[in-house]
């Protein structure tokens, strides 16, 4: 095999096996004195161009990387859903049972103030929606659950929710 091919192969292997990007100087050190590392690297780059793997210049040197255009097909997305925080779950329960309910009503039932963050979380998840305004001073927004809420909780209808007496033994 010719000298040139041999240099290219060595640089290729080196860049592949290295645990970090390699500078041209590091490749030059491997190839030994009298070898133009920059042109060897250019050759490696040319050989890989257009393939599924490319030699790219990154901060700190040269590195093989899968071609950027393939990323969407290569990336596997794993869904790791979060648990709804306890407060949000309670607010959702209050709305589900007492809908339509204003913020003040929800706060009164829970005995705790309702943060905007909690409301936003439920809105973003599509679990609640506004149902107009209550015609009292201040005209507060009325909140209700959505069809998405029923779907996500596997309910056909709001009446599927167990009644209060079924859940809690009075005086218990």
């Amino acid at each position, binding site marked *: 095999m010719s000298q040139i091919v041999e240099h290219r192969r060595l640089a290729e*292997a080196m860049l*592949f*096996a*290295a*645990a*970090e*990007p390699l500078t041209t100087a590091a490749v030059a050190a491997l190839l030994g004195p009298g070898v133009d590392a920059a042109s060897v690297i250019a050759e490696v780059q040319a050989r890989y161009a257009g393939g599924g793997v490319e030699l790219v210049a990154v901060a700190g040197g040269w*590195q*093989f*990387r*899968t071609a950027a255009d393939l*990323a969407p097909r*290569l*990336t*596997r*997305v*794993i*869904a*790791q*859903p*979060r*648990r*709804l925080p*306890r407060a949000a*779950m*309670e607010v*959702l*329960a*209050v709305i*589900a*049972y007492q809908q339509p309910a204003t913020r003040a009503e929800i706060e*009164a*039932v*829970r*005995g705790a*103030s309702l943060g905007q963050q909690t409301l936003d979380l439920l809105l973003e*998840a599509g*679990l609640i929606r506004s149902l107009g305004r209550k015609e009292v*001073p201040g005209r507060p927004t009325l909140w209700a659950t959505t069809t998405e809420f029923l779907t*996500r*909780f*596997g*309910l056909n209808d709001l009446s599927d*929710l*167990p009644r*209060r007496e079924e*859940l*809690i033994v*009075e005086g218990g």
Partner: protein
Amino acid sequence: MSAPGSLERAASTAPVLHLDGFDGPMDLLLELARAQKVDLARISIGALVEQYLAVVAEARAVRLELAADWLVMAAWLTWLKSRLLLPDDSEAAEEGGEASSLLAERLVALELMQSRAAWLAARPQLGRDVHPRGLPETLLQVDRSGLRLDLPGLLRGWVAVLRRQAAERRYVPPAPARWTVGDALAKLAAMLGRATTWIGFELMLPSAAAEADARGSSAEGHERSAAVAATLLAGLELARDGAAELRQDQPFGPILLRRREEAGR
């Protein structure tokens, strides 16, 4: 000096042995057999036995301690040698022949095993001779935007709310939205109607605002401010009409009110 398996020949014909280099007596026997430079299946067991016994005797002369398995093997080979010396047709000689072929078989098996190990050792090994990608890319993306929802969780939330409600037996009606000047006038009139002495301003405030103040609740701060303002305005109003007197002994000190005596006029 003592490379594994090395066997040096000194000026004499007796092999000088580094026992440390051998993995047990079988390993030495195989090395001795190889030195015969014939097919392992056709080695001279007799010669092998002599060599082994010589090596062990020499080693014992130099060092007293020698691992038990070396001595066990020496004893067995001595026994084998005695059998090999007997006339061919005796039963004991037959025993010896069987033991010899057993030994030869074991040496062949050992030789095979060692060549297998050598083959493996000569393979390019990952991480030593060949290398995997040094910078693997993780093509997994974790999507944590979703919500894990379950009906039991929802019901647990509702039950928690209900329990808390049940625990707070006392029902506290919400405070009126705003204490108006009109409200304050009515309350002042009612309180001063009975009073003959100075009354603290605080007592004139609506009860909810006073409570909020006592709890230090900032949420209801606005309501309290409104009530204080309304009550002060109402007090000034009554004073202007000549129905009440206000007193404050020092700046920011407590404000006191009392009904104005008709006689004092």
